[in-house]
């Protein structure tokens, strides 16, 4: 299988070509599967770059998320111990009072494609549940999503709850979603905010790499 072609097919969101290339994989070994997974991840970086340049937008990211999930479902069973070490792990959720999950799922798919293990806590997640999950998983990066302005207050409560649990200094928090602005970021007390999935992922990646 030609990994360069796979990378470009993912970048072009060419579903038929991706499927055809992945069909060839079933007879390959674990090493080829690992190379295919890397190619898909590089393809998703192209998707991110096309989003940043304005060529792709939200509908494309929704499509890309599905394409990547489908590809990973084919590739992962073939890896047999050849799995790559993730850059790091983090948690992501839509905060209490908000049920919007499309943006969160796009970010999650892009995080995973960029080699980050993203623990999805779901939607409508309370500050207490988030703190519990952070404690349990030991994540150092947390992404909070919300489309409703109502979510802003829950984000603030979540950060206060992290503080009360003595975790705030250890955990970097990024907020995202249609409701978010620089002013709200300051009000909430988050470390960063973004309306762009690609930019948000870069911020998380840099945090996890300690940049």
């Amino acid at each position, binding site marked *: 299988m030609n990994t360069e072609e796979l990378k470009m097919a993912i970048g072009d969101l060419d579903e038929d070509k991706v499927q055809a290339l992945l069909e060839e994989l079933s007879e390959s070994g674990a090493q080829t599967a690992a190379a295919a997974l890397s190619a898909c991840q590089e393809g998703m970086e192209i998707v991110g770059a096309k989003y940043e340049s304005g060529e792709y937008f939200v*509908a494309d990211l*929704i499509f890309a998320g599905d394409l990547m999930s489908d590809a990973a479902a084919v590739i992962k069973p073939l890896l047999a111990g050849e799995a790559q070490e993730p850059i790091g792990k983090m948690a992501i959720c839509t905060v209490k009072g908000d049920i919007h999950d499309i943006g969160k799922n796009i970010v999650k798919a892009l995080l995973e494609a960029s080699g980050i293990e993203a623990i999805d806590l779901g939607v409508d997640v309370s500050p207490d549940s988030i703190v519990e999950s952070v404690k349990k998983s030991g994540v150092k990066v947390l992404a909070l999503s919300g489309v409703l302005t*109502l979510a802003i207050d829950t984000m603030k409560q979540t950060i206060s709850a992290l503080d009360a649990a003595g975790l705030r200094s250890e955990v970097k928090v990024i907020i995202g979603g249609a409701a978010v602005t620089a002013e709200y970021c300051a009000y909430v007390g988050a470390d960063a905010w973004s309306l762009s999935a690609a930019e948000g992922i870069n911020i998380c990646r840099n945090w996890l790499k300690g940049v």
Partner: protein
Amino acid sequence: MPKLAERGIGMDAQKKLLERKELFDNAIAFKRNKRVPMLSNFFTWKIYDAGYTAKEAIYDYAVMEDVVRQFIERYQFDAYFDLGTRNPMRVTNAFGAGRHYIDEENDTVLVDDHTILLRDEYSEYITGKNEWYWSKGFKRTAKPGLTIGELKNAVQEFLVFGQFSEKMSSMLSSEYGALRTASGYAMVPFENLFLTLRGMREASLDLRKSKAEIKECMDFMFETESLPMLEQSLALESNDTAADISCAFLGHSVLNTSQFEEFYWPYLKAIIDKASAAHKTIFIMCEATMLRFAEFFEDVPKGVLFVQLEQDDVFEFRKRLPNIAFTGGMPTNLLGFGTPEECIEYAKRLIGELGDGYAFGTDKMMSYRNDAKRENLIAVCDFVREYQI
């Protein structure tokens, strides 16, 4: 449509209506006004402001009427987008769950992204729309085992809701001399897929997975639904509304530029061209940003569009599209978390810099408790109403 006096509108209310209508006519046409008109984009926020829960107001039309009256009397906007008729849950709950529901713990109204039309049913929709609606679409939204008795109850609730909507519209003009946003309606087909039939996620996927089918279906919808609706709307009088026709602009928020050019703009342009030729105005309710597609709107003649902006920087918008009048710009974070003085300062800047072609309004649909504080909204509304340009 009967003249204002024939519709039981008293002289005081009639005078106010005419003044307010003129304010919006001028704003849309970029003519100088003595003051900036004010358009309310407040939805469920006014329920909480009036001291009720969402459940109390949405299920009881007498309570909702009190909510709307309190809001009109307290803030005195010139035109209103919502009159308590946004969430007809008594109707939808009567036959099934509906997409909207109340989160009682948080006292909010939420909406699910869900799919009614399946990807392989586009051709069925085209060849037998009513059959599809009855045997597939309605069946999917109705509760399992829906009885004839429950359906009859739902139809009765539907009629009661229609009476309530009419009563609220009439109350607004005859008692308060204030305007609704528009008398007619226009629909870009992608909105129908995005908002109702396919949902945001599935409609997004179809743009790549079922390109030919989605285009064929949208052409069909435009010919058989959008155009007849537009023709009817163009024939209506609009002496108690800010604009002539309203049009939702929401689905564009997921599209890239080439998708917008192919799947959205041809239909919207046709609607704009027809309205423009008939000397009618269109109120566009825009979610997310419009500036991303600014190039498409550059040649729209001045005086046709009046846009409710949400995420666009209004000062940038004015520079980029000086041909389009708009409302919006008052930041929710100031109304919700700032002081009355800060709100007034910002409103002064909006009016000072935007002036002609601008109607005062908020930067989003106001739905939640923390979207505004009462004292901030009173202060800013009192200020804008008295502020001479």
